[in-house]
């Protein structure tokens, strides 16, 4: 996935002479995850530059650059360091098109490596997507595979509005065969990654792969065929796909790493209940991180939804 993201940045920089890449350690180092590896050397220090260590400024200066007609793609080094920038994101970047009546816009992408499962230190494993999804005026995109990551990052950069682009750290080293050329998915379209008839699992980011693993085991061990939906975009949310799948299976489980309470899963469940109530055969369940701070790495496997926890939820809804 790292290479796919790197390729997306390169091709977008080549296509769009107004695009800039900025952030901490994104220059000669290539970013702490190497997503920007070699990009400064190829496109120059004027368009790809390291900034001082100040996240609010990275966001606020990106907005200023956008007002001057540039298209900044900013990196927040880790999700846990993105919070100082929230004021600029919420109070300005998300609102600029609105408050200026469309005269000044913020075509900015903020890339944020997020979520856990990689044995990292405190502040390096969190899932803050709900903060952003709750902020009107932002698009929120979360790829789960390398090829999706490529296309969705390209689409985010081309988008006329601000996009918060979450990169699941535990999938950075995942591999996928396929073509990068040609049309990719637009922002706002999810996909069914596994067809099934008995229950829909709705997920995004790293938990898509885990949900697929759970679906494989359910099929093998008990013949339960789970459909897995990868949302890909939280905002805008693919309401049609969600309704179509759940109406067909009549059962749903939502899986994400972020804590349960007021997590994005609550939004998904509400949509399912509003749009599919007459089709539901069982309560809709969530399998999520717990309402605790993200735990130390040596016990994180008990926090991040496991195949066992997902299967337990599936069993509850299919046996209802």
């Amino acid at each position, binding site marked *: 996935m790292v290479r796919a993201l790197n390729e997306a940045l390169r091709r977008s920089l080549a296509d769009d002479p107004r695009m800039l890449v900025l952030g901490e350690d994104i220059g000669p180092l290539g970013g702490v995850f190497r997503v920007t590896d070699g990009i400064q050397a190829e496109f120059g220090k*004027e368009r790809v530059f390291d*900034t*001082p260590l*100040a996240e*609010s*400024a990275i*966001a*606020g*200066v*990106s*907005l*200023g*650059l*956008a*007002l*001057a*007609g*540039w298209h900044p793609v900013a990196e927040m080094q880790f999700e846990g360091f993105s919070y*100082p920038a929230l*004021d*600029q994101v919420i*109070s*300005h970047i998300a*609102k600029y*098109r*609105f*408050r*200026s*009546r*469309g*005269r*000044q*816009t913020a075509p900015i992408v903020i890339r944020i490596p997020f979520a856990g499962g990689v044995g990292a230190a405190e502040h390096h494993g969190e899932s803050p997507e709900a903060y952003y999804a709750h902020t*009107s*005026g932002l*698009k929120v995109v979360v790829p789960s595979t390398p090829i999706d990551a490529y296309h969705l990052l390209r689409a985010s950069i081309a988008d*006329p*509005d601000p996009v918060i682009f979450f990169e699941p750290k535990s999938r950075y080293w995942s591999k996928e065969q396929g073509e990068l050329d040609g049309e990719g998915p637009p922002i*706002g379209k999810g996909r069914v990654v596994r067809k099934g008839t008995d229950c829909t699992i709705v997920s995004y980011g790293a938990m898509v792969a885990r949900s697929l693993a759970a679906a494989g085991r359910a099929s093998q061990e008990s013949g339960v065929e789970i459909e897995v939906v990868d949302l890909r975009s939280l*905002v*805008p*949310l693919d*309401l*049609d796909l969600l309704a179509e799948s759940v109406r067909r299976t009549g059962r749903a489980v939502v899986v994400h790493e972020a804590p349960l309470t007021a997590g994005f899963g609550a939004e998904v469940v*509400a*949509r399912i209940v*509003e*749009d599919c109530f007459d089709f539901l055969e069982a309560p809709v369940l969530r399998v999520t991180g717990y309402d605790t701070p993200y735990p130390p790495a040596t016990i994180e496997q008990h926090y991040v939804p496991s195949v066992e926890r997902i299967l337990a939820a599936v069993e509850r809804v299919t046996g209802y």
Partner: protein
Amino acid sequence: MKPTMAEGEPLRVLPLHGGTSPDPSTLRLKEEELRELYRLMVLTRKADLEATALQRQGELAVYPPLIGQEAAQVGSAFALEESDWMFPSYRELGAAVVRGVDLIEYLHFYRATWHGGTYDANAHRFGYVSVPVASQILHAVGYAMGSKMDGKGIATLVYFGDGATSEGDFHEGCNFAAVFRAPVVFFCQNNQWAISVPLSAQTVAPIWRKAEAYGFPGVLVDGNDVLAVYQATKEAAARARDGGVPTLIEAVTYRIGPHSTADDASRYRTDDEVSRWKALDPLDRYRGWLEASGAADAWYFEQVEQESKEFAHRMRTGVIASGPRPVAEMFEWVFADLPPHLARQREEALRFARGKGGGSGGKGG
């Protein structure tokens, strides 16, 4: 005037207590420009008082008076080239006057008819009103960096107050500007009070001296001296354009009015203090010098007085005549295109706005 906390004498051009010096012919401004500065200050004063009155009469939701700060705003805005940009906070009606922003459109912010006002920021190179304190500093720095990359050769000036210098965005903005050699002018109107907190409780080091820590010039200027403000800003903007050298200007002035019309300043400061600063009124001071030096005569002052009354009256009439925006506009500029969930919500909002909401049940958004 004894500037609070400011070490050293501020840059001063106009006499504090009357006199003919300096000789107008020694200044870089032509006599008609000297008169124009006065005219703009009077238009600002009248419009500001009218806006305060409009709020008291319920025509504006809130208004932050700038009375006392006319020289700081008009002098700095007038020193910029037409192509230079400025980013205001929320008390810069005077700078808006200089830029020819339609004040009816500007006051839509305070009439609560549209968040950013309805003026065209790009046409006036005057950014939208920004309320979160110091946040606009970063936009100005980014704008300056962007304009420099385009080789535009312009300066970008950002307005903020003494309270803003405590915010992280101020420090981050100064540091970025220095590192990237952004052609920006940081213009701090030190009006002594951040709502109820005096400068002495806000910061210990003099504001203008903070520039030294970032590695660019800091300038202390008498903010009630329109010619000194003009000169300091003119020089700072030239440094920015020519060499990408930022400048921090501390203009020492005073907020004669409350923080906003929702504030009661008598709870935290004395009438005596306000009276002392009223005696240093920037308009009286400038008019006194214009008269004494012979740069303007009674006929001119009468003409300006008449024009400013009409100016404020037109503003009043326009503000009162303006109504709420159509409900549909709430959804118009959230995104470039309306996504499905917002399309649903828009339909609901319009249905209820037409008074036909009932009966169809909660379909969600």
